[in-house]
């Protein structure tokens, strides 16, 4: 597996810089640690390295030692890595060891359950943060992230989250058009993440309950937040962005129609949520992970004078004043470019902690409404004390919470 393509793939200016260029301004190095070295965490390493010649990767941590070793191995020939066996850590306390290393910035890419604790610890340790979405799986976690984001602001620490549409040019241009009134006043919106099944790892005889669940973290609400939180947050976040804030309430429904076996943990496989915002604006959110069904990953904002449709790389407005846009830089790199600019002072200060926490909370509110079958207000949802997951983390027995049944 070669990673050279990662460094040359972007059409942006940074790609033109030789990886060695940083050496001449070594005083401007940004030392980066990584907590969570799975597919996304490792992908984020390359995105981060591609974003700026200032970046150096110095420490890695993951619960599973083979994950850390695998990531370290991939960095062996990377001139901007100073990762050594002494700076690779595994176990549930790996995050503390990474944060104790000499770092400026940390990438948080573990399963979402751990994010609030890791984010708070990173801010307490005075690190700038890139954290993957979602940033929590329950309301106590969301509140912890909001509190830590405020502390980060006091400490002038930069925080960027992995809701990369906020850094993607077709979205940025489209939201600007909406804010400039091209579709008139927003009346409603819809958003979708409908797709097929994702990966799953078979349980082996040697796996404890905890290991089995963590290796299949997508399928356990305590770890992922369920797919409405883990995946659909992207589209919900775009609606919150366009409308200007989170909703007042949610009435949701959902269930588990196809992924019914115990190997699929305890999450649902489909949700539909009616979100109510200020001024009678409504958003209908749809998400499904079932093979063989119609797919759609998109957002649609309906205004009094036009409709904006966005689906990743393209934005199209129809109506009184048609407009369309496509292209732009890989957003997974751009989010790191923007973060590095914030850290180094060459760009605006970014702290996305609060807003990504609000979008996470929006998705959690939708999930809890669908799980319970009840309408939930924002204040009920965000003030909930329902915490998911074990109090203490250890490999061993860990019963699976039953699948939620609406109305019971």
């Amino acid at each position, binding site marked *: 597996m070669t990673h050279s393509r990662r460094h040359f793939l972007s059409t942006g200016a940074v790609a033109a810089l030789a990886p060695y260029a940083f050496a001449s301004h070594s005083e401007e190095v940004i030392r980066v640690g990584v907590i969570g070295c799975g597919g996304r965490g490792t992908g984020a390493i390359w995105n981060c390295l591609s974003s700026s010649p200032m970046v150096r990767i110095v420490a890695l941590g993951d619960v599973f030692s083979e994950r850390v070793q695998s990531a370290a191995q991939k960095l062996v020939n990377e001139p901007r890595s100073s990762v050594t066996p002494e700076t690779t850590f595994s176990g549930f306390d790996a995050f503390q060891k990474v944060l104790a290393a000499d770092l400026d910035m940390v990438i948080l890419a573990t399963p979402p359950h751990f994010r609030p604790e890791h984010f708070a610890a990173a801010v307490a340790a005075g690190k700038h943060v890139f954290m993957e979405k979602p940033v929590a799986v329950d309301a106590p976690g969301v509140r912890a992230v909001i509190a830590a984001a405020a502390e980060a602001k006091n400490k002038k620490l930069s925080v960027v989250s992995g809701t990369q549409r906020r850094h993607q040019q077709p979205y940025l241009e489209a939201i600007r058009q909406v804010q400039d009134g091209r579709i008139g006043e927003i009346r409603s919106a819809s958003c979708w993440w409908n*797709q097929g099944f994702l990966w799953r790892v078979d349980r082996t005889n040697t796996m404890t309950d905890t290991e089995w669940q963590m290796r299949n973290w997508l399928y356990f609400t305590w770890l992922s937040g369920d797919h409405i939180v*883990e995946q659909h947050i992207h589209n919900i976040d775009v609606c919150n962005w366009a409308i200007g804030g989170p909703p007042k309430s949610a009435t949701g429904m959902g269930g588990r129609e196809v992924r019914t076996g115990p190997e699929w943990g305890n999450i649902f496989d489909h949700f539909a949520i009616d979100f109510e915002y200020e001024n009678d604006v409504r958003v209908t959110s749809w998400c499904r992970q079932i093979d063989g069904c119609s*797919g759609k990953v998109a957002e649609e904002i309906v205004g009094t004078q036009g409709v904006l449709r966005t689906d990743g790389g393209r934005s199209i407005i129809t109506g009184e004043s048609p407009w369309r846009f496509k292209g732009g830089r890989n957003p997974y790199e751009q989010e790191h470019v923007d973060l590095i600019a914030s850290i180094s002072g060459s760009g605006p200060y970014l702290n996305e902690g609060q807003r990504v926490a609000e979008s996470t909370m929006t998705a959690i509110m939708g999930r809890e409404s669908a799980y319970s079958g009840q309408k939930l207000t924002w204040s009920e949802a965000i003030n909930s004390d329902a915490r998911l997951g074990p109090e203490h983390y250890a490999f061993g027995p860990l019963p699976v919470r039953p699948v939620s049944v609406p109305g019971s």
Partner: protein
Amino acid sequence: MVCLPAMILILLLATDVLSQSVPGTIHTFDMIPVKPDPAHGVPKAFFVGKNEVSWDLLDAYRFELDRKAESESSLPESSDIIARPSKPYIAMDRSFGHNGYPAISVQYRHARCFARWLSLKTKRHYRLPTEAEWKLLARRSQITKNNILEHAWLDENSDWVTHPLGEKKPDALGLFDLFGNASEWVTGLKGEHLTYGGCYETLAKDAFPAKAVPEDMGNWNASDPQDPQSIWWLADGGFVGLRLVLETDTDGKPAKPPAKGIEHEPKPDESPEDAKPDPARLEERGISG
């Protein structure tokens, strides 16, 4: 709407059209015979798909619908090692449309593995077109810059989405969508991965005359956020599809797939781990965007 002369043309051509069924599925598709052009690098006659490959057919491959449909599989034993695509982490049809629409977002190797699967299923030698073959189709299509928008879904008339196969006028060979809808994978003289034929985002002025757009994995799969990135799907390449050709024997009849090591056997650097996926690798694949 197909105009009368075009209808007559289709009827005339229909006599030679080969209707291909796919064992284990409900699908059939039409292959149109094409005479050789030795002066331009096409020494042998071949058949070419009347349409780009549909999602219906690709789904049969990727979801193993052919196996589920048949208790007694028509596949030879070697099919056990057929690699099937990984789970994509977005809707790879981009919600443009699915049944009856061209399959898109497929990487070159994915297209080749599909052709290999189809060859094993049908016992006929399907593969991607060569560059010379595709250019021959373009020359004989009688499509020009003046009539291209009657035949092709392009930037000017597509609304930036794919359209159902076969909705535009067929060209002089009876092919649909050669110059538009999805771009089509083609193998270059030196094995290069090329695409030909415009797509729904191509301007008409760029679509004719047809020129190769080489594979650009840096941009076409840039926003797959995982490491390793997908070796099947194009996260940002929603415009890339495929059209297959069918080899002929010297007598002009459809050729059987090579007995051993089909031409499209994945190269060592492309595939072995796909055939027998490693769970840890699968786990890293395609998380969720």
